[in-house]
C-alpha cells in the first residue's frame, strides 16, 4: 500500500476529475487512444512504468475536470479489464468504478483473421464478448475468436 501511494504521488494530484489506475504499462497509450485523450484540453498527467506491488509495473492517467460515461469506460475492457477509475472530487476519491464489460464491441478492435471481410472492406468491425471473464471476442463476420491478449486496436 505504501509503495502504491508513493508511485501515485509521482504524478500530481488533481482537484476534480478522473484517475485511471492499474493500467498495464504497455497499454497506457491504448487507453489514451480509446478515450480520445489527445483531443482533450484540460490538464492530463500520464505516468507509465510506475512500481506496483500488485502488477509489478503499471500506468496511471489523471485527467482534470473530465468524467467518462459507462460506454466510454466499457471500451477499456477489451484491453485491460482490471483498470480502476477513481472519480475525484475536491482532492478526494468520491467513487471507485470497475470497468463494465459490454456484450458487444463495435469499431474498436481489429479482427485477427487476415481473410476476414472486415480487413478488406471499409466497414465497422463488430465482436460479441463470448467470454466475459477472460474477455474473449468473437467476430460477427468470420466467427473467429480473439483472446484478450491478442486484441489489436484499429
Amino acid at each position, binding site marked *: 500500500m505504501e509503495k502504491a501511494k508513493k508511485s501515485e504521488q509521482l504524478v500530481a494530484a488533481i482537484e476534480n476529475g478522473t484517475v485511471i489506475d492499474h493500467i498495464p504499462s504497455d497499454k497506457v497509450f491504448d487507453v489514451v487512444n480509446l478515450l480520445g485523450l489527445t483531443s482533450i484540453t484540460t490538464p492530463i498527467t500520464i505516468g507509465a512504468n510506475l512500481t506496483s506491488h500488485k502488477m509489478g509495473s503499471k500506468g496511471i492517467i489523471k485527467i482534470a475536470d473530465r468524467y467518462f460515461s459507462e460506454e466510454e469506460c466499457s471500451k477499456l475492457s477489451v484491453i485491460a479489464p482490471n483498470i480502476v477509475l477513481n472519480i475525484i472530487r475536491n482532492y478526494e476519491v468520491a467513487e471507485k468504478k470497475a470497468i463494465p464489460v459490454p456484450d458487444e464491441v463495435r469499431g474498436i478492435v481489429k479482427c485477427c483473421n487476415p481473410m476476414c*471481410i472486415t480487413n*478488406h472492406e*471499409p466497414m465497422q468491425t463488430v465482436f460479441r464478448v463470448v467470454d466475459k471473464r477472460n474477455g474473449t471476442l468473437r467476430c460477427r463476420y468470420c466467427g473467429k475468436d480473439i483472446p484478450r491478449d491478442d486484441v489489436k486496436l484499429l
Partner: protein
Amino acid sequence: MDNSGRSLISLEGLDRDDILELLRQAATFETKPDRKILDGKVVATLFFEPSTRTRLSFETAVNRLGGRVIGFSDAATTSSSKGETLKDTIMMVSNYADLIIMRHYLEGAAKYASEISPVPIINAGDGANQHPSQTMLDLYSMLKTQGRLDGLDIFLVGDLKYGRTVHSMLTAMRFFNPTFHFISPEELKMPAEYKEFCRENGIRFSEHSEFNEKVISEADIIYMTRVQRERFTDLMEYERVKDSFILHNDMLAGTKPNLRILHPLPRVNEISQDVDSNPKAYYFQQAKNGLFVREALICNALNLL
C-alpha cells in the same frame, strides 16, 4: 424494403424443425424439379471466386424454376478487380436482381452483404467459413439413403482439420443424436474446439488414426474428404500417410448393407475408381441432390413456399 431476414448465411440459426422442413421441401422438388415458381424473377450469381460445380448447380436450380440468371463466374472479369468494394457491387446488383447468390474468398463476406443488401443473399461459400447449401445436400443425402437422420453412425475421413464441410456437419447434426467417428492423419485431426462442441452438445465421438475394413464395419455413412499435400507442414509425414486414407472397394466387403459413401467432390484419388460401381457409392447422386436442395433454398429465400 428489407428482405435480408430471408437470407441464408449459415445453418447455425436453424433448429431441428427448420432443417427437416427444408429437407421435406427438397424432397418435393425431387419429385418435380421443373416448376415455374420463379417466373419473372431475376437471380444474380456473383462468384468472386470461381467454383464451377456450385455455380452450375445453383444456376440449374434457377433455370428449372423458370427464373433468369445474371452474374459473373470469376472476380477477375469484374469491377472488384479494379478495386470496387463489395458493398458497391452488392448495391449495384441489388438494383437488378431479386436474389443474390454469392461465393467469396473472404470469410464473412456473405454476412456483411446480407446486412447491406435490400434483396436476400444466399451464401454459396465464404472462404473457409460457411457453405450451407453443401451441408444441406449432405443431410438430404443421408436422410434419403438411410430413411432417417436420427442415431446414425457417421464416419468422417481425411482432412478433419481444415475441411469446412465436416465442421458444419457437426453443427447441423447436433439435433439428431449421431455418433461420429473421426478418421484422419495426426496432422489433420479434428480441432479441439469442435470436439469441445461435440461434448457440449452431447454428441458421441471417437477418433481413429487407422482407416481399414475393421474400423468402418459399423458405419451407416462414410464421408470422405481430400487429404491435400499443401495442408502438411511436414512433407515426409504427407508421403507416409497419403495412401493410408484412400477408400478401396475391397474394404467394403464386410460393411453394413445400408452403408453409403459420400464425398463433397471434386475427388482426386481418395476414393479409388473401383468403388464407383459399388452400389454403396453415392457421391454422384449426392451432387445431383444438390439441385433439389438448392431449389428449396432459393424458394425459401424469396418467401415463395
